[in-house]
């Protein structure tokens, strides 16, 4: 075990990306649902625009019901969770049955939440199991490179989403630093000139979110 191939590195990387996509979008879904209670009933449209998905929902109620649970919507949280599962299941021998189980449990949570009387409260269990998954990645996977490829995927995805969501620059800089650490340890190929440019841009006081986002998206080489 432990021999990383192009195919396996892809699965590990995207496992990290999709789990993080579920984690961050779910957190912002919960925040959006809260905003829609008594602040801005159409706030969901802002979230859709920021994360670059089309507003196919038409109303806040439909958004609340569809965005987390609709498996036919490729942008839904469950669709991203299924993609995380698809990448995890083919890497059982690298990440371990125990680690993989937390993705399955998160899927069970989201399906149970859909059927529950309080879906928005129950969906929080998904976050618990995603965090447990990350705990397992740290605790169970012995191979440092495997761990770091997954974390690199997580780091890139988080950075991308934070840039989309225009999170304050302090957090962007913090996540960039973490991601860079995983990048070096993952031993994946990346564009050195992009990294150099990013280093410079991230050291400025005012960040150009759009340019940084585009560079981050092109950092890892196929």
């Amino acid at each position, binding site marked *: 075990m432990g021999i990383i191939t192009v195919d*396996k590195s892809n699965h590990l990387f995207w496992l990290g990306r999709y789990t993080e996509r579920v984690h961050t979008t779910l957190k912002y879904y919960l925040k959006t649902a809260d905003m829609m209670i008594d602040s801005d009933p159409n706030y969901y449209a802002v979230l859709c625009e920021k994360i670059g998905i089309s507003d196919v929902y038409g109303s806040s109620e439909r958004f609340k019901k569809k965005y987390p649970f609709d498996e036919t919507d490729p942008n839904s949280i469950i669709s991203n969770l299924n993609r995380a599962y698809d990448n995890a299941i083919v890497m059982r021998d690298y990440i371990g049955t125990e680690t993989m*189980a937390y993705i399955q*449990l998160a899927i069970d949570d989201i399906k149970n939440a859909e059927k529950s009387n309080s879906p928005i409260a129950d969906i929080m269990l998904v976050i618990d199991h995603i965090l447990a998954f990350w705990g397992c990645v740290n605790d169970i996977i012995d191979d440092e490179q495997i761990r770091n490829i997954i974390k690199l995927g997580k780091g890139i995805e988080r950075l991308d989403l934070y840039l989309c969501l225009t999170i304050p620059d302090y957090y962007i800089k913090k996540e960039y630093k973490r991601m860079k650490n995983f990048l070096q340890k993952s031993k994946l190929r990346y564009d050195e000139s992009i990294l150099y440019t990013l280093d410079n841009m991230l050291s400025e006081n005012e960040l150009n979110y759009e340019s940084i986002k585009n560079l981050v998206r092109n950092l890892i080489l196929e």
Partner: protein
Amino acid sequence: MDDLIKNSETINRLLARYGVKFGIYKNGEFKEQLFPFDPIPRIIKKDEFSYLERGLRQRVNALNCFLSDIYGKKQIVRDGIIPEEFIFSAKGFLAPCDGVSPPKNIYSHISGIDLVQSKNDNWYILEDNLRVPSGASYPMIARELQRRSAPDVFTDNSVADNRNYAELLKEVMDNVNTGGINVILSPGRYNAAFFEHSYLAEKTGAVLTTGKDMVCENDNLYYIDYNGKKQRVGAVYRRISDEYLDPMTFYEESVIGIPHIFEAYKKGNTAIINAPGNGVADDKGIYYFVPKMIKYYLGEDAILMNAPTYLPYYEEDMKYVLSNFDNLVIKDVAEAGGYGVVFGRSLTSDKKSDFIEMLKSQPRRFIAQEIIDFYDLDILDENNVRVPRKADLRAFVLTGKTTKVWASGLTRFSRNPDSFIVNSSQGGGFKDTWVLSR
């Protein structure tokens, strides 16, 4: 035992949690299903297992001798023990394997032998699976979970630990490894048994691959890492069938095989587990001859009996089959997985006449067997009530330095009260198999 029953739902939930599923295609769409687990184990006493162990080792050793002979001198045919039509017309006989000897001359490293126990306590062999038998991982993981859910049951009963299967499998791979890493070659995520492939890779430390990362060069097989560095592959536990293994030698349209792997194998540079061409020995037509093989190669009488079988190929047997049609089960030798099985008594008169015509025109295609009234085992139905159902046992026999029988097995059962078909693809479930250690 009550503790096991009480925790049945927990175990099935945990099996789902760990992704213990099998894939199935329905209307062209891939679906993953849970393999229903029944908490009441099949229990085999120590003495009974010793008897089965002797019989199974004998059978698999003879089958390995047969394969070596058939792809070598073919002495058993020359000596008139098996008619040559049964060898060369068998779908599983692969001409490219003729004259090829696998590492350490082992052909069937992992043999899945299906047995049933009749109501008079006799065990009968139903079929031999010497190509890619699957199913060991299910009782392995179920045992692990049951030990957690009802530990006292295992303290109070002396049950042989079955969690050594991965260790036995690794020994088998290491024994024939020609130098390099062990890999498990899977058709991929959408194969019915993908759970098993990935679980066994995790437990044996072999690399799981779909072949995309492998290449043959100069008759050697390599696994290519992210940086393009080649690692030699010494043993391939393949979970894809013979015809898809190498598009250069077998089915040329195969996209899941590895071009030239057969050449690497032929030159003795990598082991393939199980060896290509084993299908000739687990052909339903050849099954009839296994007791004769045991006598021929080992000079012993078969310890375990075949179900009484008739070959319509022989005139006398054809007469018997036609006059006892309603009492027999007829099997198409080319089919597997519970398909191609016809119970004579279940056919309408029209269908019966059509079938008999087919039987007469293609006698080599079918075998007929007496229906064994085998033991029902209790299972829990959907209302948690114990009900009897037909069940078989797949025993796993592993051939490395020696031939060993895994002290457990996959007990499959039919959930339909009127059915003898236990295959998971046809809705069956599974049980753990306990071998008592005292």
